[in-house]
């Protein structure tokens, strides 16, 4: 039971706990904050899996940029209070039950695979380093990389189209 294990369990529990709170907390702003917590926990996992680059990007892009964006929007619409009217209980229950059963069937399906021997290697290997990632990103993955620029372009244009006042 090394430190990594402790950390693993801690982060996992933190992530799940945070996730649940994201879903159940009444105040949207709280949800956002809890989501950030989840992201932090996941970044922690990345570090454990020595994917340092991803860990950082995750923090910067997600926990930083995106979540801030969300917060902005909330502020913009000042929905910080519990303005959200309650969905009727039955739908809620139905939702939870369905989500739970989805978990159930997924687990049931995956349990049958014996992955005992399969290990996610820890604190070893340097594929997560920005150097290696960069290299293969600009060699093998150059096409998708360029293509993704199209994605951004379209997103950009789209936001302009939507946002522009007429």
């Amino acid at each position, binding site marked *: 039971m090394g430190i990594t294990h402790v950390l693993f369990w801690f982060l996992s529990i933190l992530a799940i706990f945070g996730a649940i709170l994201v879903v159940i907390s009444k105040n949207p702003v709280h949800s956002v904050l809890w989501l950030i917590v989840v992201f932090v926990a996941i970044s922690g996992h990345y570090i454990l899996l020595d994917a340092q680059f991803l860990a950082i990007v995750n923090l910067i892009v997600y926990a930083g940029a995106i979540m801030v964006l969300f917060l902005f929007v909330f502020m913009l619409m000042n929905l910080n209070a519990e303005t959200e009217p309650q969905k009727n209980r039955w739908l809620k229950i139905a939702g939870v039950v369905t989500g739970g059963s989805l978990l159930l069937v*997924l687990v049931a*399906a*995956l*349990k*049958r*695979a*014996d*992955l005992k021997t*399969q290990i996610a290697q820890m604190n070893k290997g340097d594929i997560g380093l920005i150097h290696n990632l960069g290299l293969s990103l600009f*060699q*093998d*993955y*150059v*096409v*998708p990389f360029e*293509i*993704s620029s*199209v*994605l951004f*372009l*379209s*997103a950009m*244009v*789209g936001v*302009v*189209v*939507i946002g*522009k006042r*007429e």
Partner: protein
Amino acid sequence: MNAILLSAIWGIVMMFSGIFTKSKTAIRNTAILGLVLLLLANCADMTGMHVSINVHKMLYFDTFGLLGNGIAFASTLLLVLLSGRDMEKVGHNLAEYFALIFFVLCGVAIVTTFNTLLMLFLGIEIISIPLYILTGSDKRNLKSNEAALKYFLMGSFSTGLMLLGIAFLYGASATGTFFIDDLWSAGAVKTNPVFISGLLLLLVSMAFKVSAAPFHFWTPDVYDGAPTVFTSFMATIVKVSIFIGFVRLFDEGFGENQDKWQIFVAIITAATLFIGNVTAVFQQSVKRMLAYSSIAQAGFMLLALLALNSVSKQGMLLYAAAYSVATIGIFAVLIRMKDYTFEGFNGLARQQPVLAATVTIFLLSLAGIPLTGGFFAKYYMLAAVVSSGHYLWLVIFAVLCAAVSVYYYFRVIQAMYFKEGDGTTEAEPSAGFKGLLVVLAAVVLVLGIWPQTLLGFLSKLPYTW
């Protein structure tokens, strides 16, 4: 490759065209030019003339995909020619709309030629994100907004599913790559369940994109809410090209363990056929009816996926062509109608004989009556499954559903020809419009008499890459 590049570039061109000129005609002509070039570029691709870029096996070009591209581009061209003017009515940002359309086409070109799940994912996203926008492009119209939001929320949800699927497949693959042709290696029996789960989730997300039941719920609302021009675009070009990607994925990726997933496809197909056809019966608005009919047609296309043999791939292309042309034609007329309900079509034959006649041909094609492309499209689908020898019950079920489809397609014909009324278009359609419709009708008929004209390419093209 040409197509991907050109579409992306031309997207940017269109983006800036809005700055340099305010003349909508100029913009539209630029777009048309672009599409023509795109078509040529694709032909070049097909004949092996292409800019050589090392894609590191991320893309794989074959006749099937490229022909699919060709169909998509050609249909887009027809759509723009027929309904270009109507795009102007949607909003002021004509240039941007065209830009987005070109980006979508770029995505299409990727989805039809991807060779790794990553490219598939990117392609799908490049298609989806502009579509969210186009759906909501009629900003003052609440229906359009609502459609956009629904589409977006559910779309991103399905993206999540797809990614989980991809992750599982990645975990199951022995080589640790995303190339579709070595996703499954017989050695990795232990990880079989992971593989299957991934496959299922991928299947579900793709089914969502092609609006197959029970993942079709977004379709009627989105198609109904979106500006009709873009509905036409989504319902035809986007849908069929994703279908081609769909078939491609399962053919290359999961072809050899068909037995593992055929049953799921069968279930989805049956559900789609049933829900699509039966629900369409009671619709009051032709637009919404067409939305459901597109679901029904998807059900038929799924038969190709079920059988997954040479016949079904040919049939897929034929279906793509026949279905797109017919649907674009109908939508082109629908856009011009005063009233989108069935009553709106009453007596159209007297007001606009040409429109009525052509629409009739398109509807007959959708219903799968011989002498129209739709017949051979359906024929190939049925033939594909029959030749595979399994799931004959599904074939029977499919034809019964096709019989149901006659009900709602013929309602339009009845309205146009046999009902009294003064349903007509908003403005007298131009001669060019009519002429083009006639051409489309002719295309449908040609496909209905010599499908070889299209499918000939599959066998004739000497493909090299």
